[in-house]
């Protein structure tokens, strides 16, 4: 069995947001939309202040409520991942309502409107979004057109969530957030392979998951502490 999982080492994480920018880039995520998130928490009183940055995303739960809620089987489990098939998706939003973490959203075409804009701040002198898109030959010039997610830029109200860059995973690569984490804070691999980095990190002790009380058995785990 393969059971892909991610372990985030908060001790190594520097809170720089590279993971989220990489995510937006790799998955051509529209403006105001995210497939990964973070929380920042400042606690204590000056001068005894503690700050934490916690990257979050779909927890790829073993008992995924979104999978259970989907009336058409568009969400499904495979190799430990919770995946989404946009061909089947009818955009009903049941998964959005079901996910206790709020990690599933509905795709919003407005997120790509910037590259369809036709007004220039200096008419004739500066470009417009549409001109850039047309001259570059792509609606989002830096978009990842090779992503085999079969997602669409603009299909209104289809669900979207982190798929751990399944198009990369299928090629034996790590999700792009892990690839672009310069701090090496994102361990990726098969939890069922005892030799993998993730299995070792999970075995080493003190592992946390987000909201175990939800009872969904998340497969994204956290080790280490961000700050003091």
């Amino acid at each position, binding site marked *: 069995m393969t059971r892909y999982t991610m372990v985030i080492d908060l*001790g*190594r994480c*520097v*809170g*720089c*947001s*590279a993971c989220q920018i990489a995510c*937006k880039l790799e998955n051509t995520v529209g403006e105001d939309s*995210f497939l990964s*998130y973070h*929380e*920042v928490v*400042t606690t204590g*009183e*000056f*001068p005894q*202040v503690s*700050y934490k*940055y916690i990257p979050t995303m779909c927890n790829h739960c073993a008992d995924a409520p979104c999978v259970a809620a989907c009336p058409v089987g568009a969400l499904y489990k495979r190799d430990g991942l919770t995946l989404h098939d946009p061909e089947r998706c009818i955009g009903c939003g049941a998964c959005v309502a079901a996910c206790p*973490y*709020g990690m599933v*959203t509905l795709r*919003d*075409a*407005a997120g*790509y*409107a910037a590259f*369809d804009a036709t007004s220039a*701040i*200096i008419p*004739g*002198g*500066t*470009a*417009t979004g549409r*001109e*850039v*898109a*047309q001259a*570059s030959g*792509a*609606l989002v*010039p*830096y*978009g990842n*057109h*090779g*992503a085999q*997610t*079969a997602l*669409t*830029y*603009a299909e*209104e109200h289809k669900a979207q969530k982190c798929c751990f860059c399944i198009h990369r995973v299928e090629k034996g690569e790590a999700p792009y957030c892990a*690839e*672009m984490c*310069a*701090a*090496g804070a994102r361990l990726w691999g098969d939890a069922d392979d005892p030799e993998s980095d993730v299995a070792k990190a999970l075995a080493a002790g003190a592992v946390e998951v987000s909201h175990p009380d939800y009872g969904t058995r998340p497969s994204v785990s956290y080790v280490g502490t961000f*700050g003091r």
Partner: protein
Amino acid sequence: MRPTDQPIDRRSFLRIGAAAGAAAVLAAQPLTAFADEPADPGAVEAPDDKAASAGKWVMSSCQGCTSNCAVRVRVEHGRAVKVEGNPNAKGNHGCVCPNAMLALQQLYDPDRVKYPMRRTNPEKGRGIDPGFVPISWDEALGEIADKMLELRNAGEAYKLAMAKGRSTGIADVFHKALPEIYGSPNRFSHAAICAEAEKLATGALCGYWDYHDYDLLHAKYLILWGTDPISSNRQISNAISQFGKMRANAKVIVVDPRLSATAAKADKWLPIIPGTDGALASAIAHVILAEGLWNREFVGDFTDGTNYFAYGKPLDESLWQQYGKYRGGNQVYPGGPSSGDEYWFDEKKTYGICRWWNLELHDKTPEWAAEICGIDADDIYQIARDFATQKAKAVSWISPGVTMTPRGGYTGMACFALNGLAGSYETEGGILRSPSAPTGHLADLYAYKDSKAKKALKKPKADQRQYFEFVSIEKAQASHNQNTNRIADAILAEEPYGLKMMIAYWNNWVFSCTGTARWEEALAKLPYLVHITTNPSEMSQFADIVLPAKHHMFEAWGFVKNKMNLYAYLSVEQPCVETLFEARNDETEIAWDLAQKLAEKGWPNLADYYRIECRDPYTGNQPTNAEEFGESVVKIFTQPAWDPAFAAGGDDLKKWADFLKNGVWNSDRMTYKKHYSDFGTKTGKFEFYSETLKEVLQGHVDRYKRSVNELMEACNYQARDGRAFVPHYEEPYRNGDPDEFPLIFSEHRSRLNREGRSANTTWYQDFKDADPGDEPWDDVLKVNPRDMAALGLADGDEVDVVSPTGSIRVRARAWEGTRPGVVVKCYGQGHWAYGHVAAADYERAIPRGGNNNDLLVAEWEHLSSSTARHGGNTRVRVERVRSAGGAGGGQTEGEVR
């Protein structure tokens, strides 16, 4: 304002979800269709080229900050779609920070300037529409050439200034060759608004007038003085990737008025009162000496083994007068509590420890410093003891935060001197210089200068760097360094003379220099400004001609140089995508094309120089066009790295093509103790009493027939006599009456700033809260909750921040990571131009947030002529405009401005 993501808050999330998708502006298009079946045939290229669709990696460099990381760019279908670290690089070893990815949004920024533009409204000022109209390159260059020749023929060639912001390793070919051959001594860079005072502070003590590197993986203890290396400074990618190991191995102490990202992850945060770092450093040094904890191998010892510093008093000056000479090859000093006996300090690799003690340290106790710095004396004792007892594996890492302040030269020296006491200079786990990274240079210009040029070049430089009160030290030479921020005053006062024309590229000084109001006035007065830029920035608004610039990472020839992880490197920049409109590269294409235009109009010298002297070093062929010229010049400047004949060591590259393919040349790893026999100071030692600085200052005052004490006075320093030559504490200098302006303003850098050029990218705005305490799509003033309560403010209230020199309107954010009495704001937002994301309303010149430089009073660190923006040099008051709930506050809008 954009919605903030709050994934855990279910209700908040549902609200965003329900609001989404109000309008479907685009037809549904599968992603893959963009490669295969164009929905809009006019918009999408045909996918007939298999190799192109497979994509390729092209090596380049990131100039988002001075880390200058070697990168590789993924190009698919002629588009740049990814930026990653170059795996061949030993400095950033395949890593990049988030800034590198932001470059993609800069490249495809919809607000980029497409064509050259000419101003039609002669009136210039903030908020005044320049009335730009597009013109052809031929027209634009023709007009610029006419203006240049007009000046030259009038005998005023020296009234042209070249000004650069971001530049590459080949900058001289444009920024130097053009004005020198043309006949202007005025070529300015943004160096003095960056970190030049840091170079002064290190050079004065250790003879290396440059930024240092740090052995992060072997250090056991680090004191970071305003340094936030996982967000800014000069090796971000390396610091991020090594931070985990470093933290496991070492104690990390961060001295910073605000809780920076690094402070959040440090073992200890010392929230110092801005500008008082010198007191803390002197107290640490005092404890190290008084408790006898200094490194004996590096510093030496009293010959009888007794620690005479332990008495906490100055050593005997009378014996000093009598015997303070050389003995046995070592600098020695007599001293001791009783003048009847002789005690000698046998100094090894350092010089002047006893004089430093007498002139500064003997009474600088932690109790004394605690009052000044707002740091517990117990903490100071502990840090001094821990720092000094790591067997030289201890780093005192200085930054602009402590040096780019009105009195930061000596503050930087005080902090940097601790490396001398710990003996960690050039040691394993310590602080290191860069290995050499040899580069080529411009061929001699002399033969191309005519009599007009030679005459004009004798004029003084227009930035007042040669004035008495601006020592402008660069690499131990006075009157040498840039005085970037003084140019505005020089233009306004016409002192030493009025500039008439400026050709500026990739700079935005009316936004990035403190005291912006002066710059607005100066640029409105400057008769003719050419601005070469990617975006219509604030500076462009004052331009007569705007020229669209290519992006260095993706579209142009160049190279960069830096060091980190104990390696020096050169990294190439090469065009990997076609520019979408008509941008040209400043240092190669515009240089070449302007030279051709000048030749066409009867002055061929620059064109001749480019053609004859910038031949391809391989083939010897003269360049025939701008593209060949660009490649030739990069070859010339990087040849020592890739041509085996130069035997530069490091990577074994055989030819130019190897360099392009590898993308980077890495030096050999830096060796420890490399300069132990001679550090390059006047004495060859690590100078706690700087004979090196003394010589420079004495030479400077001699030229003006004045004294060092007069110089100190003119430079706004408190030191007199011998204290001018030792690291010491100077009281912070603050503008503004404390009664009228009760809060100290402190600013910092964003980890997404790309040198202040990324605010028009949506990802910068989306992730602005990666800067601790900040908020997405906003520009908040971070205020301690106790101060918020005292001011009657609620979180999110709109406020005016008013300084003696200006005011900005932003939201106040209650944050515990801010010291009470100090308000903190990140630099980078507050653009009133640049683009539709950076500015809240470009057409109406309404900024998103507020520019710190509107508030900061123009001040200098006068020894280096650096712009002093840190250290709390400006006081402010905060006035509520509108409460967070939207109801009016104590004052109505408009009243307070």
